């Protein structure tokens, strides 16, 4: 089996590049993720990784050669002596149907927490509301991991029936089960990935390759000191690295910190736990309750439930809240999204959150679990952290960092009394929201935490 290695387009403006150095030599064994060569573009010297396992069978473009992007530069074969006679004949500019066609910045690659503009594939994204589907259609959708909101119904009164779900599945790009799994874990939208397999089927390699690496040139000095352990920056790590850097350099971050008296909040939670744990089969947690509060407050402060459009020209305010709650998993940080959280009751919210976390921890997240968020909550309280400055989950407008609830002395009516104090840190993007409005938002959250009964008075 032959894998074509092309010069990737590593940047929106890159049109051509010259190969600086072949790290692997012809005949070398290569593994996925091994650095094959370095290339210089107009901006930087960049590394290109192998996307297949096997042997670097033939180098077609030498060091120092400048070629247009997407040029075929080498061949990797599965077996050492595999026949490549078909390539010897043709010239070097076979364009590959495989690699992701879109450049990194433009790519509507789905990464955790980013809400996408609707791609052509996804179909009409219904605003949250009643979906009419036959029982059989629901069953099929659930079994195949289809979000009914994406499916158009052709039954009576527009009801979604089984054939509609099947038609939706048929129109989606075909992907191998491994590719689907990987896409879910990495938060990659399959619609944005080209398939290199049979009949254009998306393979796992395609999914992993769909997220390019952006790494600045490494100075030689560092390589002199041998590392105790080398962890390649690939997969989820690479995505996080890229996104965090992007967010940090792009947004105008300001962090507001406040301390809320959570004594009543803790009490309310204890009482709820006592009342419903048996009936629900689980005890509602602080994250559930805080999430409920935050979701509803976001509906009161739509400018906080906003995002910047892809072209950076418009601030879009949303009237539904898809709340992401950051979760630590074996693979790393994932942010499952609870859809339409502002309209859900505590039971529904908590049940859904638990289901999403289970899937995330098991590595079985569905693609839609990790996308479409409009606001994120990240909680480090269990590690004794009070205040911190979280990084905004682009393209959202803000993120709420949650610290620990700690019994501390506080002053009430001139007396020093022990109270459960909770530090909340709101990082917001000053490009989209100003300080005072952001502060009012945080203050309102604080108010509800301190007086949970006010939830009853909300719309």
């Amino acid at each position, binding site marked *: 089996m032959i894998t074509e290695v092309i010069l990737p387009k590593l940047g929106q403006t890159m049109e051509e590049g010259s190969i600086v150095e072949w790290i692997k030599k012809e005949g070398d064994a290569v593994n996925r993720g091994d650095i094959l060569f370095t290339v210089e573009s107009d901006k930087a010297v960049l590394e290109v990784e192998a996307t297949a396992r096997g042997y670097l069978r033939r180098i077609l473009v030498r060091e120092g050669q400048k070629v247009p992007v997407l040029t075929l530069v080498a061949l990797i074969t599965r077996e050492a002596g595999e026949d490549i006679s078909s390539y010897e004949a043709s010239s070097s500019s076979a364009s590959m149907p495989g690699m992701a066609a879109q450049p990194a910045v433009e790519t509507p690659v789905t990464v955790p927490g980013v809400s996408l503009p609707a791609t052509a594939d996804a179909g009409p994204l219904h605003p949250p509301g009643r979906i009419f589907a*036959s*029982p*059989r*259609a*629901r*069953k099929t959708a659930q079994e195949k991991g289809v979000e009914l909101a994406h499916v158009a119904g052709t*039954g*009576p009164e527009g009801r979604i*029936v*089984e054939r509609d779900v099947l038609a939706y599945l048929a129109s989606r790009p075909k992907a191998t089960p491994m590719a689907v799994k990987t896409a879910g874990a990495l938060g990659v939208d399959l619609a944005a990935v080209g398939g290199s397999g049979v009949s254009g089927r998306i393979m796992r390699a395609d999914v992993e390759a769909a997220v390019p690496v952006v790494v600045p040139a490494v100075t030689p000095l560092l390589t002199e000191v041998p590392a105790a352990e080398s962890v390649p920056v690939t997969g989820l790590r690479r995505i996080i690295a890229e996104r965090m850097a992007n967010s940090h350099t792009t947004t105008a971050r300001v962090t507001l910190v406040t301390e809320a008296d959570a004594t009543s909040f803790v009490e309310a939670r204890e009482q709820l736990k006592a009342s419903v744990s048996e009936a629900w089969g689980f005890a509602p947690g602080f994250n559930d309750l805080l999430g409920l509060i935050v979701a509803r407050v976001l509906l009161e402060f739509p400018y906080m439930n906003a995002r910047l459009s892809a072209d950076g020209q418009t601030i879009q305010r949303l009237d539904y809240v898809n709340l992401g709650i950051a979760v630590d998993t074996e693979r790393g940080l994932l942010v499952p999204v609870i859809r339409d959280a502002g309209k859900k009751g505590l039971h529904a919210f908590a049940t859904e959150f638990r289901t999403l976390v289970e899937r995330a921890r098991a590595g079985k997240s569905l693609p839609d679990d990790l996308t479409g968020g409009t606001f994120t909550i990240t909680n480090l309280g269990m590690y004794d952290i009070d205040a911190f400055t979280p990084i905004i989950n682009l393209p959202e407008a803000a993120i709420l960092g949650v610290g620990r609830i700690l019994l501390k002395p506080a002053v009430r009516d001139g007396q020093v009394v022990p109270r459960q104090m909770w530090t909340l840190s709101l990082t917001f993007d000053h490009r989209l929201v100003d300080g005072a409005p952001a502060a009012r938002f945080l203050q309102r959250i604080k108010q509800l935490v301190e007086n949970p009964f006010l939830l009853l008075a909300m719309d």
Partner: protein
Amino acid sequence: MSKGKPIDPLETYGLTKEKALDLLRQMWEIRMFEERVYDLLGQNVIKGASHLYAGQEAVAVGAMSVLRDDDLITSTHRGHGHCHARGAGIAHTEEAKQEHYNKMMAELCGRETGYCLGRGGSMHIADVEKGNLGATGIVGGNIPVATGAGLAQQMQRTDRVVLCFFGDGASSTGNFHESLNMAGLWKLPVVYIVENNLYGMSVPITKAAAKLDIGDRACAYDMPGQVINGMDVLAVRDAVGKAVERARQGKGPSLIECQTYRWYGHSRSDPRKYRTKQEEAEWKSRDPIPSFTTRLVESGACTQAEIDALEKKVEDAIEVATKFALSSPMPAAEGLEKFVYAPFQWTPADYAHERALRVKCATGGPGTQRISFWQAIRDALREEMLRDPKVFVMGEDIGLYGGAYGATRGLFDEFGEERVRDTPISEATIGGAAVGAAMAGMRPVAEIMYVDFTPLAMDQIANQGAKNRYMFGGKTIVPMVIRTEGGAGRSIAAHHSQSLEALWTHFPGIYVVMPSTPFDAKGLLKAAIRDDNPVMFIEHKMLYGVEGHVPDEDYVIPFGVADVKREGSDVTLITYSRMVLRALEAAKKLAEEGISAEVIDLRTLKPLDMETIAASVKKTGRVVGVSEGYKTGSFISELAMRIQEEVFDWLDAPVVRVAAADVPVPMAETLEDAAIPSVDAIIAGIKQVLR
């Protein structure tokens, strides 16, 4: 009346002293039982109805005293006296007598240890094994049953007699007239005993009967009738004894009216405003118990001491019985559904055999023959009658005429008029006699000529037949088949064209079977006859001429097995009887349009084969139910609900019903065709569910 020594009743009536004391004892036992029951009712320990017999003891005791142990009785809602006199009469040891008394009280208290395991209670108490065919809550409901039991004795050539008790109120019912007519016609060994206590609940007989002396009505039924003093136990014994002897010798039935009185009201909530205190006092002065004891003592037949000792004995016995009842457990809720049906007798071999034959007869060939539906019915009856002498056929015009649709053609010639029995036009008693005959050991196949007439027999078939097994604690079976036919297509309009299966599926305790082919008809009818449960077997008038293959060998079709008559993948049609043929036609037409329809013939509506239905729904996701019953309350409405309950998640659309219009079936062809589901209507239904 001359002075001097009173006439010795023992001598006059040929009684031994022992027997006399036994009569007295039974009357006391009844009286004390009723008084205790009244007490317990007042304390709300006994729940529900209890209609007390106190005052009428002489009738039950006197009548029962002439019976043999193997005779039979039927009783009424006011039947504690009958049940006791019968039970005490056949209990020949003290232990047995106390046990009987205990079981009666326990049953009234709704206990697991009662005669009917707490399921029947006061009004439905029975001991079928010992010849008490049970009481009924329907006034007059036991009269046809007794008549059928009498028929069974005649057919089995026993010399056993049936006593049928009922009141003046019941003598106004149709059941009374039909049953006495039938018994008089066929000379059945039944003694009909009317306990005229002058009131049917609150209505006096003067306001209920055109002719006050009920006994005189016997002349209309070619049997002797008389009116006697029901307060005199010996007078009753004498009259009933003569009537029983007459019946035993095969001379036929009698009607005996016993004039009597009940001390209490109709039930515990009755303030008895319709009777005067004076009248009550007058009757009380004729209390059968003191009048009997007086006679015995004054004539020197017994001493007062002996009588007092007996009374004390009964007082003790009632205490024991009460204690027994109140310390007995109530039946457990888990046992709620036991005894509704007699258990299935089909073996796995029967199911496999039927499946194999089904396949064979679908195509025909060696070992099968092609016959029509009416022949299949006739052959099934014939084969079962040859196989089991207890099987017989009765109904209107089924004898020489061969049945309205020819389904019994030839049976009369082969088996004769006793086993292929034409009946008078008396639907209720045709049904009720079938119940009684079945309970008394026969296996009747009674025909109701049109399903439209089955409501006339609904009480007897559904209230008595379908319920007796359960009400009597599982201690009887009613192995009867009611054959009938329905359906439209002959322009005979609303009283001869209906499909009323939905009504019959509603009652627990009776199966409903509706075959569509000769193979199904023959196998299912044979199965119905062999089954120990009541079966409503509904044929279709338009199917009698339809032909199909049946096997040469003996076979039965177990109940609860639907037949997929056509396999398909796009839509499931569920139907039965004639609509199967129309559904198959519709499926054939739609196959040309590329629609693949699966057609399921239920064959038995009760019991229902949900397994086959569920498998089909899982396959296609779309269901059309087709029935010739009126749409509202049709059986397919029940079916749709079962589908929703069990395979909801597999449905891609709501179930579509194609049923008859909610219109009395009209006579004019154009209207009749519009009222009944046509092939086009079925096709339209299929297209609707596929949208």
